[in-house]
């Protein structure tokens, strides 16, 4: 019964987003498409951080791998958008595998620093190999290249529906993962790595697998972002894009399936509103985060789950 309740809630969120396609004003309609794509990336971050306890500061590298995997595939190999999306997704997973094999030899603060260094190296590599990546300027994906069969991703309505489809798939896979035995093992690893080892689980293997799944999500988010909005640039692989999913997840609720979406939604509009009031909008964002850490350290859905809805996955 509890499982059904959780599924109904997640389907209701998807239904609300479908309804928003018909009812939302154009400005919010465009914002929601962007938020859904960023939420896919944040869901991936949540799998590593929220479920498995891997506090990474280098996820921009995985998002960037998705962006450039799709963008360069389209530009240099002439891939259509559909295969470009797949290429970007797997680029994120493969990058996570490569980074994980090395970075997971460390833990805690050292893991944060190593992943941050990898991401910075990736960012600088994008700038350095400008003949392929177009460096600072970035890659503009032409309208003709942004079509999946008859679906034109440069069209607002099509873009929204594709974003919703990808978001729905990512959300439901995430829900299934969180409820699966494998999801419990990830949480066990987060809660007590040594105890998990004493029950027969190999922490390195579990964490590497979680990081690769996280990378696939980040790659999908990056590839979708590039193809839908037509631009692949180094700024989207900068350290800021490692921090953003962390903020989304902290705000929405680490280790909750809907937390990344809720966090991305609120943070997007907090920044949007604050920037309309002041140039120092990051101060407002920072203040909001301080309040959050002081009064709801588990994030919004984490607090709700702890106090009122223990069934929330």
């Amino acid at each position, binding site marked *: 019964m509890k499982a059904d309740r959780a599924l109904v809630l997640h389907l209701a969120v998807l239904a609300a987003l479908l309804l928003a396609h018909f009812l939302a004003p154009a400005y919010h309609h465009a914002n929601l498409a962007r938020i859904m794509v960023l939420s896919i990336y944040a869901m991936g971050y949540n799998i590593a951080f929220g479920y498995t306890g891997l506090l990474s500061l280098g996820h921009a590298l995985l998002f960037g791998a998705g962006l450039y995997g799709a963008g360069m595939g389209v530009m240099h190999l002439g891939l259509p958008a559909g295969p470009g999306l797949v290429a970007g997704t797997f680029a994120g997973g493969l990058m996570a595998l490569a980074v994980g094999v090395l970075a997971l030899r460390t833990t805690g603060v050292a893991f944060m620093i190593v992943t941050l260094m990898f991401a910075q190296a990736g960012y600088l590599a994008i700038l350095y190999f400008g003949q392929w990546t177009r460096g600072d300027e970035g890659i503009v994906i032409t309208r003709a290249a942004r079509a999946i069969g008859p679906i034109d991703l440069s069209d607002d309505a099509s873009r929204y529906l594709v974003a919703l489809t990808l978001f729905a798939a990512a959300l439901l896979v995430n829900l299934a993962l969180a409820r699966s035995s494998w999801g*419990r*093992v990830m949480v*066990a690893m987060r809660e*007590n790595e040594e*105890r998990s080892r*004493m*029950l*027969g*689980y190999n922490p390195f293997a579990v964490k590497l697998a979680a990081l690769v799944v996280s990378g696939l999500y980040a790659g999908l988010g990056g590839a979708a972002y590039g193809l839908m909005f037509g631009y692949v640039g180094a700024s989207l692989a900068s350290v800021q894009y490692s921090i953003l999913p962390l903020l989304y997840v902290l705000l929405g609720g680490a280790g909750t399936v809907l937390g990344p979406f809720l966090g991305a939604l609120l943070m997007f509009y907090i920044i949007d509103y604050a920037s309309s009031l002041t140039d120092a909008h990051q101060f407002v964002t920072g203040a909001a985060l301080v309040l959050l850490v002081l009064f709801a350290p588990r994030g919004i859905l984490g607090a709700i789950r702890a106090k009122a809805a223990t069934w929330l996955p």
Partner: protein
Amino acid sequence: MLTLDGITAGYGAVRVLNDLSLSVAEHEVLCVMGRNGAGKSTMLKAIVGAVPVSAGTITLDGARIDRLPAHEVPRQGIGYVPQGRRLFGDLTVAENIEIGLMTRRRGARVRDNVLSLFPLLRTRLGQRARTLSGGEQQMLAIARALCLEPKVLLLDEPTEGLQPSMIAHIRETVVALRSTGVATILVEQRVDAVLAVADRVAFMVGGTVVETAAASGLARDAAQFAKYVGI
């Protein structure tokens, strides 16, 4: 069944176990006693691979396990319940049990067997582990270790801080497990608990076993406890 032969182990440069030898057989409960710092918990950690062994061998049914990665040791059939229980507090009772079952791909039969030993847990399956009482947490910690269907069960002071009814229940569980063939190494400080369940008692001093005696003989000779444990 489980044999430690000349084990030396410790933390970095600090040697805690010195040439320690010990064995426990099927259907046997071996209690290990000693003063604080004697190396009792470290011995259990050495068996499960959490503390590296620098000399000696540990064998289970004749096969060496001291060179295995720590996560492989439970798969050979060794269940370990550390001091402080260390449950996964954010997971429910059912999920904690499931984590234990998955390692050796055990299913409903083992789950039912384990829950029949701890009927109280059956009524708490949906409750998060961190919200259980101390005694219930200890039951869950033992239940989770039993999900591995261990040949050898290692218990590190399982009755510490529990109320008498819970202590009695844990004793009964240890006795019930003995009848199924499980070998148990029980680190314990309470003499009454030791005498209630032990077949043999090993006394540790300075990281090694200095004397092993049948529990039935110790019941008539309390001076041994005073000599090695100070009770």
